[in-house]
């Protein structure tokens, strides 16, 4: 494998992960994209979905994030996520609960923009639920 890229996963409460990895696949708002070392600088928002990390010292890892954004530099990826859960720890019940909450949010949405945003979150969550 070629050079490694530094991957930082940061939540508001703490630094969750900071390690060189081979490749990261991020769920961008406008589509998933993979990042290898030497990637062009990108700033992207993330939709709720799964980050696929390959080549950690502890092997591969899949992490669920509930939105956030990513900053990509040629030698570094920084993901700021409000919530990140390793997929291994995520089960269907939690996700169902999350979907239910989002549906409630949707019903309570005030503006059209807010409605649209929550609706797209909901679709993402449902897709994820189906994939699990």
């Amino acid at each position, binding site marked *: 494998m070629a050079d490694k890229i530094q991957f930082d996963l940061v939540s508001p409460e703490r*630094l969750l992960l900071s390690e060189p990895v081979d490749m990261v696949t991020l769920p961008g708002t406008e589509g998933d994209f993979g990042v290898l070392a030497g990637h062009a600088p990108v700033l992207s928002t993330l939709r709720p979905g799964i980050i696929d990390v390959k080549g950690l010292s502890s092997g591969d890892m899949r992490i669920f994030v509930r939105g956030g954004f990513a*900053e990509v530099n040629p030698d570094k990826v920084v993901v700021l996520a409000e919530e990140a859960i390793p997929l291994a720890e995520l089960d269907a019940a939690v996700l169902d609960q999350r979907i239910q909450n989002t549906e409630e949010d949707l019903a309570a949405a005030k503006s059209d923009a807010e409605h649209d945003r929550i609706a797209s979150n909901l679709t993402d969550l449902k897709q994820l639920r189906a994939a699990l």
Partner: protein
Amino acid sequence: MPSLKTFRNRIASVKATRKITRAMQMVAASKLKRAQDAAQAARPYAEKMASVISGLAGSMANNPGAPVLLSGSGKDVVHLVIVATADRGLCGGFNTNIVRKARQHIEMLLREGKQVKIFCVGRKGRDQLKRNYNHLIIDTVELAGVKRIGFSNAAQIGRMVLDLYSAGEFDVATIFYARFKSVISQEPIGQKLIPAAIETSATPQTGAVYDYEPDEGEILAELLPRNVSIQIFRALLENAASEQGARMSAMDSATRNAADVINRLTLQYNRQRQAMITKELIEIISGAEAL
């Protein structure tokens, strides 16, 4: 003249108080450590967020399409004052200092003819502000039951603030909290939350030109509401650390004061005892002389 028994009782009661204050001091010391760690751990996210936003805001600030959270609502009539204090007392001047700072700000705004709304985080601040500004307080959030302040607490407050903002309830928001400088010094400060106070750096630190996905405006619109929650979160964490620091030094001086009081009372007690012995002796001797 108080009897010996009252002295003994008072000494015992002050000793009990000293035990309590000493225990509180030690508890505060260990909580302080945890609060400081939490504040430290939250720093990378907040810093990253700030640097990304300042990079974006530089290009967006004068743009007519800039998000309202950045440019403001264009008015300066209604001010929201968020006062973050502790839920518990016994921490020296901590709560009072924050409230005093906030009160100065409120008085200034009222003098300028602005409308003020107060949003309290923490019970103590509300209790103190209720006396003069009860009609201005619109809401209170208590964090008494929360052991460790999580981002969800801050996000909840952030959402409430943003809802108020999008409903046009206020134009400018300022949050008051105590910045943690050191264990013995906490500085109450007011920080502008909306419109976002951002140091715009002329040159991006990285020097790299980013591709934006989606475009800059949309990213900024996504980030700014989050930034509000982050700033609140940061304020709450700083506040938590400051509270424990203030409590620690307050309890330290209370413990020392209790020791002083005990010494003084013990001295008085011994004098009194001696005086009584002397009195009895005089009585016996004068009785014997009279025979």
